[in-house]
């Protein structure tokens, strides 16, 4: 069934979009990532103009994250307090990120920088996570109990706060800094930042993997809702018909994904996320290294 999208000005297959939304929704519910970094390239591939794809994707993520977070609320795996602290940091970071982005754009070659950023960042995070979770799986299979809590310099910082759901009593400074850094990266890369936030919460803040997913989804809702409004009012690139098609699949996918995620072991969840992050990294590196099928590309508008 073909449907003509009013803003993208292109006709697409509705079932294809429902399916795509569903798959990305499952990943979203399982791992606490928005899925924008997967969906946006897929939308480009179908022929949706990049500006419309990025803006509409933000709107779809609001829906699937909301659906996912409700499922997590029911299981009490959302740390509202931690989510709020991260969100405050995230919004500050996003504002800074927009400034940085515009500065880089004025210098030219912002695309390349973003891509290199992605490859290096995803490569390092994915690689470290993969090794760590592989070791964890090996240890548990040998019968040793995994140790999570470590005492380091982070616990010496002031402004301590109790995060009951996460079982942490730490200073608010690390979560705030993590929020700011992820916000900056998210704004530069044009994504919600879930796939950076999730490893950061696990490894830097030491939160339990189960709580991380719900908490990440909680703060993604606000970041992407903000992005949607920004795109809708300044660029007019949110395609509501495209969004509805994607989010119908997405919200159901998120519910299913959450249920799969809860049944899995933390190490398994982490290793799958690591593999996904590495795959995206590999794809981007491949694009940079291999000769494109057409060295020419067309972009709308002059400059």
């Amino acid at each position, binding site marked *: 069934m073909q449907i003509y999208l009013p803003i993208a*000005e292109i*006709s697409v297959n509705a079932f294809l979009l429902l399916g795509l939304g569903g798959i990305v929704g499952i990943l979203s519910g399982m791992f606490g990532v928005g899925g924008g970094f997967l969906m946006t390239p897929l939308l480009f591939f179908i022929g949706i103009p990049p500006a419309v794809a990025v803006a509409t994707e933000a709107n779809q993520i609001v829906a699937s994250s909301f659906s996912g977070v409700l*499922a997590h609320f029911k299981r009490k795996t959302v740390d509202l307090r931690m989510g709020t602290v991260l969100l405050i940091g995230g919004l500050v970071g996003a504002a800074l990120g927009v400034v940085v982005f515009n500065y880089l754009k004025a210098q030219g070659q912002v695309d*390349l920088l973003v891509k290199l950023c992605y490859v290096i960042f995803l490569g390092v995070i994915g690689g470290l996570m993969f090794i760590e979770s592989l070791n964890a799986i090996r240890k548990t299979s040998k019968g040793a109990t995994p140790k999570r809590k470590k005492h380091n310099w982070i616990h010496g910082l002031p402004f301590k706060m109790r995060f009951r759901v996460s079982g942490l009593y730490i200073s608010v400074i690390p979560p705030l800094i993590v929020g700011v850094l992820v916000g900056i990266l998210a704004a530069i890369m044009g994504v919600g930042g879930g796939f950076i936030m999730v490893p950061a919460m696990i490894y830097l803040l030491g939160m339990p993997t189960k709580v991380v997913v719900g908490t990440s989804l909680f703060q993604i809702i606000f970041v992407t809702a903000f992005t949607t409004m920004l795109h809708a*009012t300044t660029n007019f690139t949110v395609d509501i018909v495209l969004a509805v098609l994607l989010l119908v699949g997405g919200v159901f996918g998120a519910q299913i994904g959450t249920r799969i995620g809860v049944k899995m072991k933390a190490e398994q969840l982490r290793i799958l996320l690591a593999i996904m992050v590495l795959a995206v990294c590999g794809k981007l590196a491949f694009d*940079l290294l291999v000769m*494109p099928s057409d060295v020419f590309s067309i972009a709308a508008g*002059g400059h």
Partner: protein
Amino acid sequence: MLRYIIAFIMLTLPAMAEEVVLGLSKDEVAITTSFDGSDVLIFGAVKREAPIPEGDPLEVIITVSGPSEAVTVRRKEKRFGIWVNVDAVEIDEAPSFYAVATSAPLRDVLNDVEDLRYKISVPRAIRSVGAPMAVQDAGAFTQAIIRIRTKSDAYQLLENGVSVDAQTLFQTSIQLPAALTEGDYKTRIFLTRSGKVISDYETSIDVKKIGLERWLFTMSRENSLLYGLMSLAIAIAAGWGASAIFRVFRL
């Protein structure tokens, strides 16, 4: 009185030996939610006062062009082992859609001078004022946009696509793709003999969104805040709805 005016106009007009009388299967294309491309049949007849001239037969060229816009064409090159955009050329005007249908191979029905004058062939329809000095082969960029858009059927060259009957009746069918932008689609008909344009005629096909498409598009431009809020409301409602359904069925 009116008769005299008409007679006067007739006298002052240059005597046109052959001219076009045109019909369109539709002069309006409505983009609805289920829009999936559209065929437009363009047909007409040649009106002439004198008998058919001797020599080369009459040929017909029909062009349909969508609204023009500026585009930037970028080229990648390998630098330090990775592919990066190195140079860009701005094309001032490139139609979003362009189709040329001819009654015989384009080379035979139109000479270069006439092509330059009427901007008929695809490369001529694209206007590029000038590439930056640093760019060596600016022509490659124009060729690139033609190649890319031809692949997606946005640019079509339909040689022998016009059928001409007894040098008088002609018809062609132009297929508008599913990815169609709104606007006035300028339709031109040229009659040529031995490569020269002897008569031309212009009309337009109005392509516009209607119904829900129109409403959403207008709202997104004129009431963007409300549109954004509506998008978010739908997203939240859908998220909650899915969660509720799963809860009710205890999945």
